[in-house]
């Protein structure tokens, strides 16, 4: 039906696949934390029951269980009790349906530890910081690494012999190790940069020059801790791809045609970059994972820190919310890159048409 609109067909096809993946991700997100028999209400009650009478404890427990959708309630929201005065548990499947319904409508539930704060509020407060920390460093690291890798591939020689082992070494340093080394050396020993936080404690966020300056000053170490390591990994990948593309017939032909070096480099970069783009999207997941620890090392108030705090205090609803967000953003990143590549690389769409799938 959509044969005459290959682009639309391609986008739709990818979109459906990603939506199905998203549903599976939600299911995984729902099932995994429930493998063990622990219950958010138990954790809340351990704190909340202090100083309450037995009856008040029971009532409190039931109201929490209602809040977390663990027991059946009537249409008016009243808790249903059976003949023995006990509450009725909601079946796992119905819990999942509720979870699905809530998630799709953007409701991630309430935090266990920060009750009654909404998980979505916690995430909304944290995400801008993570974006501010990671987006520029990942993006610049990606660009810098790719340029370096392309140059190493194209020039080879001494340039390659220096860049390549260095990039290889940088990419084998774990994010957090490098972060700690930076903190130790530049913050503790030399005292040049602040060791932690996103801005000076003496300021409240504002658009003042002072605040932005403070943010920039605090940004230096975390930025480099991500930027350099990421650039290393990207340079390695780009170099491989670049060398591969360099050996291709079309590059040789371009050289024989007498095209300018910059033009050939742009052929090379553009084509070698296509798989790197996919790689970028795919590794956003692991980057968020690595940067999670970066945020921990630098006490940066982002999503990683929120997740880490949640892990430390067993705040499952927040953990689930964060992991769902991470998964979703990875899916979205992949989807956009798929679409982008669909436009940038005619082979992809053509492949789909020819394959007839």
């Amino acid at each position, binding site marked *: 039906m959509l044969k005459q609109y290959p682009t639309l067909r391609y986008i739709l096809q990818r979109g459906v696949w990603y939506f199905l993946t998203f549903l599976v991700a939600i299911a995984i997100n729902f099932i995994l934390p429930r493998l063990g028999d622990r219950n958010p209400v138990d954790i809340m009650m351990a704190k909340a029951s202090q100083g309450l009478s037995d009856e008040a404890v029971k009532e409190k427990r039931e109201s929490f269980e209602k809040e977390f959708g663990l027991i059946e309630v009537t249409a008016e929201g009243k808790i249903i009790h059976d003949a023995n005065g006990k509450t009725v548990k909601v079946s796992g499947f119905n819990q999942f349906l509720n979870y699905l319904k809530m998630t799709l409508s953007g409701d991630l539930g309430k935090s266990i*530890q920060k009750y*009654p704060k909404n998980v979505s509020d916690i995430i909304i407060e944290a995400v801008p910081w993570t974006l501010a920390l990671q*987006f520029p460093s990942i993006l610049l690291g990606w*660009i810098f690494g790719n340029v370096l890798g392309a140059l190493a591939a194209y020039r080879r020689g001494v340039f390659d012999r220096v860049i390549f082992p260095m990039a290889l070494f940088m990419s084998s340093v774990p994010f957090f190790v490098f972060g700690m080394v930076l903190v130790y050396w530049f913050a503790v020993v030399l005292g040049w940069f602040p060791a932690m936080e996103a801005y000076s404690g003496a300021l409240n966020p*504002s658009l003042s020059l002072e*605040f932005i300056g403070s943010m920039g000053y605090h940004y230096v170490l975390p930025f480099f801790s991500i930027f350099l390591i990421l650039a290393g990994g990207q340079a390695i990948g780009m170099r491989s791809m670049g060398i591969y593309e360099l050996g291709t017939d079309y590059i040789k032909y371009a050289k024989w045609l007498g095209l300018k070096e*910059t033009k050939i480099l742009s052929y090379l*970069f553009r084509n070698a970059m296509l798989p790197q783009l996919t790689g970028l999207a795919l590794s956003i997941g692991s980057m968020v994972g690595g940067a999670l620890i970066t945020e921990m090392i630098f006490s940066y108030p982002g999503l990683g820190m929120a997740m880490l705090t949640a892990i430390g205090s*067993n705040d499952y609803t927040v953990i689930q919310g964060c992991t769902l967000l991470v998964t979703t953003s990875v899916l979205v990143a992949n989807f956009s890159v798929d679409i982008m590549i669909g436009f940038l690389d005619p082979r992809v769409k053509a492949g789909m048409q020819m394959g007839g799938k």
Partner: protein
Amino acid sequence: MRGMNKFGISLAITGLVLLAGCKDDKQAQTQGQDDSAAGGFPRGKSLYLAGSQWGDPSTFNPLAESWQAAWPVSDRFNLMYEPLINYNSQTGKFEPLLGTLVLSDADSIVVDINPTAKWSDGKPVVSTDVKFIFELGRRFKGAATGFAIEFISGINVDTVEANGAKVERLSFLVDKKGRNNPLVILDLLQAIRIVPSHVFEALLTANKNDLAEVQKLKIDSVPVVSGPYQLDSYSNEKIVIKRRADYWGNASLHQGKLPVPLFVIHPIYKSNDHFAIALQKGDIDASQTFIPRIWLKKKDKVQTWMDQAPYFVSGAMPILLINTTKAPLNSKLFRRAMAAAISYSSIKELAVSGYSPDIQPGLIMASSPLESKYFVAEDAKARGVLFNLDSAKALVAAAGVKSVFKADGTLDYMTDKAGKKLPTLTIKAPAGWSDWEATVTIAVKGLREAGIDVREGFVDAGLYWPALPAGDFDLIMHKPASAVTPSLPWSRFDAVMSSRNWKPIGGGSSMNENQGRYNSPKSKEYNSKVDSLLKVIPITADEVALKAAYAELNRIFMDDQPAIPLCYLPEQFYEFSVAHWTNWPSEKNPYGPAQLPMVSAGTNSLWQLQPVQ
């Protein structure tokens, strides 16, 4: 190349837009509370205190449960809302605040309301306010202060003449039929902060008299308070409170002086090591977190109450709580064997950085000036167990347990009297709590050397907390009665030994004290002495009788060993930096207790600190 540039630039622009977007977001969050902070908080006028708020501040509602409320509305902080009286953990005396303690006996506790006390909206603090919060539990089951009604049968209000002024006099009647415990009432009087009833009654009315709804309000916009500071702004990174120029107490309690810091700022750090770095760099002025090797920080102007070990004033006692219902832990000989197998000096030196004095057997903190009067050294010598592996092995044998060692000398397993192999015991502790993990590791090492088959059982905090009241453990790390309150050491004994609410393990039963299920009232060995002593001590005024009762209770504890005290730690790790502020209370300058200037009587030092020029 050109195509790439375009692509790169568009991505960069996207990034900038996102960045800008995020800043707007953050702004919106603090808008409305933030008028003074546009130019930042001047360092010389700001006091940075840390360690009392770890998560995002979620509510400033004083009616919300203490675990939900953010600093300084939570806990015993007196900066915004104040209790009737302050307890000075250094002198053991009560100091006046919203009220003055007049009399305390077995029948009632009498407090005069300070006639000059005023709310920030200008209304006076009156008995209605006090009754509102203390009796809220009678109106609503979900009241956070509901437990007060278990102890107080009523509050009588009289008007008396004092120094020529009319004063409201409150008599808190001890509930003789209930818990009959004036000690706990004293605890409550210095812990429960009074809230403006005229504000909250109105809120209750507006919310159809539903307390749960009122508890959900954040009360974070110019709340009506009685304390010296008012909420200024907050975010997930810090909470800022600002000095109230019209605080009533400046005139009545502080000779007309203002508290020195204009702002008190509480940065929110998520991980322990950040406090140390911030303190060293002078980013925070005082903290109450465990910072190892504090002596290394002296060069960075970080100080503590004492100049040398143990650096801090002890106040809390971490213990290893034992599940006394499970074989072989149900044998007191076996429990005593365990107590003899743990190297307390190693724990002191390695796990808690030497912050503990040498500990004594028993549940009375021998080194505490407030408790030492109840400590009987002869009893401890005669009955207590000290670290001694040989006697530990002998006690294991005496308990009828046989240890089987492997060829290489390490422990393999234990058998009981019948020769049956006993399962390995575990010590439950939250994973990641580094000082407790270290303590457990040291304990396990000694226990295994003594032939006791124990292993570390580090679990997520989320499993740890529910396990404690449920009794779901062999051994578990615990810190009973962790705050220094007027009721110590009674409250510690009560928390470890009371059979008041004894319930067997299982079936969802939970006990908030004596989680080790010691001294079951239904068993043949039930020692009724324990509960009767716990009942009698709070109503005993006679010091000699009190001392005898405590001595007896402590002897029973040492004989039965239902738990193993491990070290003495401070109630709060009071460490401060003199980089920006000086004249902190300390051993050499003891004008106040060893507490941060936000807790109980420690608050008074806010009027004494001096900024460094």
